[in-house]
């Protein structure tokens, strides 16, 4: 049984920096849990606390059912893959993979068998006698994984292992890592800042920000039901369009700038707390795919925007538009370039490939209100009820 359980875990550094704040997280046996968040959010610190490479300031850490706060990394039976692989450059691939077993004084024939087995799972059999310097990035990454899996540990810990690979290789390795993890059925904690990696690889995803856990959920649930503004803006690419708006009577309308979007009754029904915000400011969130181009003679909820930029992807058009409503930026949720666009009031919509629109046109969007998100302007929390 290799569950990992964090209870009110805290990490405060000597200089007073509070890196991880009261983190509660339970990882099931065999689960692939991704920790995701912007740089400096505490995800790597949390991972290193589980590994035993950082002291735990306060809180309980349990692996299996055993409290491991004071145990050394070796005693915790964990294996870790680092971002820069940390392969021993003076040892061959075979020696690298077998080092941990050698330290445990594993009998030679057992050691050789295990190393060969790991090499086969990873497709490294032909490279066993090379040194890391002679391998490509992807191969080195696989050796790093081989070192981890040969130990058959209780928990895998991975710290952004794919960040150093080029885009194409990263996509390939994502599938490899997921496949190996499923094959080994070992609980895994995987840290990344790339939300695409998080969404595609994790059984569940934990979003972190400034040392605080924001939300833990399955990828789809995280996407459809973000608990707060930060998660809403962080998950999904292109990012969710967030606007300042005012809720109308009974939550049957939403005022965005000078336009009013009529909301069907189902919106208030699904979100009982929403009518209570009538007349108040809220933040409304619309994902790009919830703004398809409205067909002619459309009379449902609509929004009219000025198209600034039209990107043809072949399968669809990505339209950058502006309306006269205020855009809301969630600190740290999007990268610099997207943030700049947000501050200019730009939104993004994904419309059908053959939509006749060009920069400078006014485009009418048929607003899909079912999955619209609403957030309290002061707390940033999702309005549900």
């Amino acid at each position, binding site marked *: 049984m290799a569950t990992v359980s964090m209870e009110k875990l805290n990490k405060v550094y000597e200089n007073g920096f509070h890196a991880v704040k009261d983190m509660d997280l339970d990882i099931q046996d065999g689960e692939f849990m991704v920790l995701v968040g912007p740089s400096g959010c505490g995800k790597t610190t949390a991972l290193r606390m589980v*590994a*035993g*490479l950082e002291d735990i300031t306060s809180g309980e850490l349990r692996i299996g059912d055993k409290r491991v706060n004071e145990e*050394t*990394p*070796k005693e915790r039976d*964990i*294996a*870790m893959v*680092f971002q*820069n692989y*940390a392969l*021993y*450059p*003076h040892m061959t691939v075979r020696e690298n993979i077998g*080092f*941990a077993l050698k*330290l*445990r004084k594993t009998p030679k024939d057992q050691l050789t068998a295990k190393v060969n087995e790991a090499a086969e799972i990873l497709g490294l059999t032909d490279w066993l006698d090379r040194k890391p310097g002679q391998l490509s990035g992807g191969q080195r990454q696989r050796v790093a994984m081989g*070192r981890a899996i040969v*130990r058959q540990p209780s928990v895998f810990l991975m710290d952004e292992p794919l960040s150093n690979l080029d885009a194409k290789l990263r996509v390939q390795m994502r599938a490899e890592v997921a496949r190996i993890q499923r094959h080994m059925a070992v609980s895994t904690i995987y840290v990344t800042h790339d939300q695409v990696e998080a969404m595609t690889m994790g059984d569940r995803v934990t979003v972190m920000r400034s040392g605080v856990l924001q939300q833990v959920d399955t990828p789809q649930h995280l996407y459809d039901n973000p608990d707060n503004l930060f998660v809403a803006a962080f998950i999904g690419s292109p990012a969710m369009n967030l606007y300042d708006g005012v809720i109308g009577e009974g939550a049957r309308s939403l005022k965005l700038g000078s336009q009013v979007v009529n909301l069907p009754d189902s919106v208030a029904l699904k979100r009982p707390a929403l009518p209570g915000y009538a007349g108040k400011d809220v933040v409304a969130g619309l994902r790009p795919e919830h703004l398809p181009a409205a067909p002619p003679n459309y009379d449902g909820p609509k929004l009219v925007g000025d198209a600034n930029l039209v990107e043809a992807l072949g399968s669809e058009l990505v339209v950058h538009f502006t309306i006269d409503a205020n855009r809301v930026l969630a600190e740290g949720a999007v990268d610099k370039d997207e943030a700049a666009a947000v501050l200019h009031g730009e939104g993004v919509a994904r419309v059908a490939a053959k939509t006749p629109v060009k920069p400078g046109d006014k485009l009418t969007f048929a607003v899909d209100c079912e999955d619209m998100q609403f957030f309290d302007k002061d707390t940033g929390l999702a309005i549900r009820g």
Partner: protein
Amino acid sequence: MKGRKRHGWRRVINGVTISTFVIVVLLAAPLYWLIVSSFKTPEAMGVSPPQYFPSPVSGANYSDAFKQYDFGIYFRNSLIVSLVATALVLIFGTLAGYALARTPMRGKFTTMVTLLMISLFPAIALIAPLYLLMRQVGWLNSYQALIIPYTAFNLPFSIWILRNYMLGIPKEMEETGRIDGASPLRTIWSIILPMALPGVFTAAIFCFTACWTEFLMALTFNDVNTYKTIPVGIATFGTPTLTPYGEIFAASVVAVVPIGILVFIFRKFVVSGLTSGAVKG
């Protein structure tokens, strides 16, 4: 002017190459003379005009140096003292360098600066007290009389080099070792040391050379023939009336050979070891 490529004969014969050639010749000339003269007979030594190539070629100087002037003993003594001192410096230097590079310790900066100050201290100021100390302990004319001070004087520099090298090793290497289950000593031996090998070689070369050529302490502490080292031995080859140049040259050539071989084999490390850490700090 900048970036103008030289063509034809100007690539080979120009200001830079000529001055380099002149400098090399000036530096190599004494060495050449040394080697050449060591094979000359006593008569051919002072001949005018000087012989630029010995004729006849004679190995008598070499055999005399060993047989008549006990050079074999001096060579052995230098070898023992230099090798042992270098070994001690490497062992302690590696451990100290690692500690200063890695362990979370207060006063690391103070320690490094103190080490630097020690290495800059002029040995001659310490000769008298050291002599008295050696005499009191009864270590005059012994191997340890040289090994201990040599180790002490060469440690600071080696610690500096080794520490800089180890700073360049990513922390993840040791963390991986920890996770794999290696004890700190095992980590140093199996992981850190192989990666810091260039630094180790550099420290070894400098230390060995310094011990091999040290004159002041060797002269002061070990003046009995059986314990003399090469520099002292060669200096005392002659008598007030006779200076055996041939044998002196021969002995010097033999003394230079090990250093020359070592530096030649490890020449890459000699340069890199001094400049490592210069970029990373």
